[in-house]
């Protein structure tokens, strides 16, 4: 197998990390695919900035219970702290030394969605975020079991309301439909049975921990996926993980995230799913399969994925030496671009792909990039921080395909970079 060209490593890095940092792309040039992928998937220890200051829920609750004014005050405080949490993640996305792991954290946030809007408690969302980050490249089986008892998730999908005699099917349904098997691979009766198995799982909202209430657990025997028994929630998860379809469903999500929006090629999904299952759901194994596969490198799919708002905002700021924007503005822009961290629009997360670009967001994207690349006093130094290289390598560094608009005829590194960033192809990866 040949050695990776600069353009190859840019492809590998933009799709898996957060933006194409010059140093990161250059470091992999000349390596074999396998070497480069193995380096990329072995991040150093993960360091996050100190956690944001969040009021313990017990205190919030006391405030809420006091009176109407207290309730209002508590709501305002939660809003403020929610914004603080968003800024914290945004800052980490911008500064992290482990962008691949962070990309995966965001991937799992979009898979195992929960939203501040419903959960209300920033501290529970922060805990969920930690859980996703710590397991982002770990084991899917472990992650799934942990997510099922994650307090934010138990609130988001009403698991904490799911009690003996009055089952709430919300979590059971999404577990099957969105987290593991996908539509068409289970029945309504499977949902009902799973809901019964998860009865009694709840949250102590005061200290934000998972609690199991045996009195609320319904021990009635049920039939789940053709098996009869009195199951626990964990047993339900293990049955789901026995199904080859679960691994294939996650493989399909990887296809969509890393290869293409276009319908996946089933041969690859089967192979990736099999490898994933064989590794007992090692996420790094699946990731490595995907990145080492033919479709990931196929010219057919290069430059076909639309950059997410985080790719565009964080990726551009990480890769290029433009003046930094205040974190409140970053959070605001990401909201306008349609990716409000910790607040995905629906239980399915962000639809992504072409949905990232509509008449509203295209205008925001354009004005953001215009603003970043505009000549100003603050940006006077940008020129000197740009890599010293040839024009054609700059094109390869910033764009996945040839630009579709004409490049400037007047020479000038910064002018060139601006033209490339404003080219529609810059929106792709």
């Amino acid at each position, binding site marked *: 197998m040949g050695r990776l060209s600069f353009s190859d490593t840019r492809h590998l890095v933009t799709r898996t990390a957060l933006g194409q940092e010059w140093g990161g792309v250059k470091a992999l040039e000349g390596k074999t695919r396998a070497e480069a992928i193995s380096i990329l998937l072995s991040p150093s220890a993960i360091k996050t900035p100190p956690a944001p200051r969040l009021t313990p829920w017990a205190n919030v609750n006391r405030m809420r219970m006091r009176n*109407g004014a207290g309730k209002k005050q508590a709501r305002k405080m939660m809003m403020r702290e929610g914004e603080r949490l968003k800024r914290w993640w945004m800052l980490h996305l911008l500064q992290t030394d482990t962008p691949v792991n962070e990309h995966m954290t965001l991937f799992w946030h979009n898979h195992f969605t929960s939203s501040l*809007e*419903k959960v209300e408690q920033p501290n529970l969302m922060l805990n969920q975020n930690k859980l996703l980050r710590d397991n982002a490249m770990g084991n899917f089986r472990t992650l799934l079991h942990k997510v099922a008892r994650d307090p934010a998730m138990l609130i988001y999908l009403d698991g904490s309301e799911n009690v003996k005699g009055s089952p709430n099917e919300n979590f059971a349904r999404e577990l099957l439909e969105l987290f593991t098997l996908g539509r068409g691979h289970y029945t309504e009766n499977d949902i009902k049975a799973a809901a019964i198995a998860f009865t009694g799982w709840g949250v102590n909202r005061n200290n934000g921990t998972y609690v199991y209430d045996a009195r609320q657990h319904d021990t009635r025997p049920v039939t789940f996926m053709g098996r009869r028994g009195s199951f626990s929630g964990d047993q339900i998860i293990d049955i789901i993980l026995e199904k080859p379809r679960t691994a294939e469903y996650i493989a399909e999500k990887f296809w969509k995230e890393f290869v293409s*929006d*276009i319908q996946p090629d089933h041969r690859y999904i089967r192979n990736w799913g099999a490898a994933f299952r064989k590794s007992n759901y090692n996420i790094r194994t699946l990731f490595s399969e995907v990145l080492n596969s033919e479709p990931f490198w196929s010219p057919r799919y290069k*430059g*076909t*994925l*639309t950059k997410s708002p985080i790719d565009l905002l964080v990726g551009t700021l990480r890769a290029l030496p433009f003046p930094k924007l205040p974190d409140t503005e970053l959070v605001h822009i990401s909201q*306008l671009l349609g990716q409000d961290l910790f607040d995905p*629009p*629906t*239980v*399915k997360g*962000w*639809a992504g*792909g*072409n*949905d*990232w*670009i*509509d*008449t*509203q967001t*295209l*205008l925001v994207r*354009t*004005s953001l990039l*215009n603003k970043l690349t505009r000549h100003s006093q603050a940006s006077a130094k940008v020129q000197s921080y740009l890599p010293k290289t040839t024009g054609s390598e700059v094109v390869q560094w910033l764009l996945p*395909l*040839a630009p*579709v*608009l004409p490049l400037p005829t007047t020479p000038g590194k910064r002018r060139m970079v601006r033209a490339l960033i*404003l080219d*529609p*192809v810059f*929106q*792709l990866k």
Partner: protein
Amino acid sequence: MNRRDFLQYASLVPLAGMAPGAFAAGQGNRPDQILLMIELKGGNDGLNTLIPFRDADYHRARPTLRVKNGIPLRDNMAMNPYLKNLLPLWKEGHMAWIQGVGYSNPSRSHFHSIDIWETASTKNNESRGWLSRVLPPRNNAVNGIVLGDNNLGPMSGANSSAVAMEDPKTFLRQTKYLNKKGFKPANSSLAHMLNVQNQINTAAQELGRIHKGKRSPVRFPPSRFGRKLEQVTQMIINGMDTPVYKVSLEGFDTHASQVDQHNNLMNHLGGGLQAFSQAMKRAGLWNNVMVITYSEFGRRVAENNSGGTDHGSAAPHFAIGGRVRGGMYGKQPSLSPDKLHDGDLIHTVDFREVYATLAQRWWRRPNPWEKQFRPIPFV
């Protein structure tokens, strides 16, 4: 032959002999059925908008907030007196009230409930606006224009072909930086981007033309809401090729000291829409427009201790237009305490029945909710 067919046909023959009728106002390709949606932001108090004024339960639940001087319409229901500007439309038979509009297991969160209304899904699994399921996507024109908001709301989604703007002037300024050049899309993602770019640029070009176009002689109230309606009017009479407009009226979240606030809003609503209907009549377009209101929820039946009302559920909404069949539709939910759910009205009409009506009876398009929700004959 509908107007679009006619224009396509007309473009093949010399225009010399055409009568300068109402349509001569603009050069655009104006659709025959235009919808103007008015979002009553914050959750409008339906019970003080269309008032069950003979219902003792109403008076009991609203000792200080009850409206005593409503304008009786029909079926023991009266209209808020500050909507008096709309009374002529009611009398002409061009105003329909749809009572008890809501949905099952109502959400009392502003954000969540408006999401439900705008996506027409109660399952939190749909991020695209309901109109993108009714109207076919367009390539070189926009299906909708949202004024005064940067949120596409009922028209959101990649294929919905709508633009949102604070006002046309601001939009023209924002679009200045957008690439105007065409390009050859190398893949479907670029083709989508090009399509969106073209929609924005076409809308901007049209709005630039309309900005200099003819103005309605009708005077609009000098409020923010009035100005937005005037801008919509300007677009319609100058032939903008857009079937949907959306304007919001804000301030309906009346938790405290509601009376003056709500009356004031009713006054804005009635005054603005009266001017709009006048302008459409003057342009000979009254039969081509329908105005409809919506809001995330109604308000609690019982008033609270701060002279206001808290978030509730079902509420009445109205439609006006030259082809609207005036009258009362749906059933007013019972206010009897034992017929309430946690102090809230139980809806009698699902809001998707209203959407089904617009799809099927206004636009003659398929009803995407055919299996569950049937149209209402108010048009």
